[in-house]
């Protein structure tokens, strides 16, 4: 392809180029925006909930298992639920530490999933309490409201992701034939 055959756009851009060094610098700065590396301070900050989550999960599970047989099942269940929450923090923060960076979009997905999980557990807990004591009904209703909001956010996020994936696949198919 001779210079004249190249599109006018490319030839114009060549006449006022962005310097190679400046371009590299800009691209590297922008690449970091998408996935932010964790600073040593942030790593330290994440280490605490990771360790606390793991220790809490182990201690609470041990407690739930070793409680005397006379312990009500609701107490045992509450301990196990708290252990699950500890396990979540251990896994979530441990994953970030292992990856060494924050990924804004993927971590937002994790957050909405966690919000739905926690509010559902909370509603179950309040449900169990309200079953024994009708005065706790107000707590259950508030908890259900939070669950509903979390479910809407979760579904919105998932729906949007599915829609994007579908459109992306269609476009990929359309772009493929011409290479």
């Amino acid at each position, binding site marked *: 392809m001779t210079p004249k055959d190249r599109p006018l756009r490319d030839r114009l*851009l060549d006449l006022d180029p962005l310097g190679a060094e400046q371009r590299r610098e800009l691209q590297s700065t922008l690449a970091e925006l998408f996935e932010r590396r964790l600073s040593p301070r942030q790593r330290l900050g994440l280490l605490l909930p990771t360790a606390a989550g793991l220790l809490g999960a182990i201690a609470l599970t041990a407690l739930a298992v070793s409680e005397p047989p006379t312990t009500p099942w609701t107490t045992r269940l509450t301990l196990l639920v708290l252990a699950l929450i500890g396990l979540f923090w251990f896994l979530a923060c441990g994953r970030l530490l292992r990856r060494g960076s924050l990924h804004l979009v993927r971590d937002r997905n994790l957050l909405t999933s966690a919000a739905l999980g926690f509010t559902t557990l909370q509603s179950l807990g309040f449900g169990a309490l309200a079953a024994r004591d009708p005065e706790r009904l107000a707590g259950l209703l508030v908890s259900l409201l939070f669950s509903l909001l979390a479910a809407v956010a979760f579904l919105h996020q998932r729906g949007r992701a599915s829609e994007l994936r579908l459109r992306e696949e269609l476009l990929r198919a359309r772009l493929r034939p011409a290479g």
Partner: protein
Amino acid sequence: MNDSHNQRERERDRNEWLCLRCQRGDRAAWNELVEAWDRPLYYFVRRILPDEQEALAALQDIWLQVFGGLASVQDPRRLAPWLYTLARRTAWRQRGRPPAAEPPSAELHDHEDPSGSPFERLDDAEAVHWALARLPPQQAELLVLYFLDDLSLAELSQVLEIPIGTAKSRLHAARRTMRAALHSEHDRHDS
């Protein structure tokens, strides 16, 4: 004509694809987007901000805004006008408010295209680049959008934030001014 239409459609498909992948959190797509658009945006911004350092600062600012706003782009097919709108607003903010539409300079007006032959020199990148530098920034920015991305009138009006009819008449005037600039340069060379 068909080739250029297909090329444009393909470019839009590619932009849409990149935008969707970015919205889904694909880091490679973000890098591709930056790679594909940093030069056109820089070229566009330089027509408004001739100072290189100012243009570079504006470019960085534009990309930060793109990063913040990309997730909310409702129609990824219109990525190009969206990017140019951000770029234009940022560049003009840095430069100061866009002046009210200025009439082209008298010197350029005096050289209407005598042959009526449309744009035979407009395929000459160096001539176009030279002429763009001599046009008022308001006309230069419009023609850059026209030459770089062949934006439709509706898209031009979106980027420039003016009615379609105004975009049409401004484009016509800008092309005439550019032709006149090219002719006057040509005449100077001949004499």
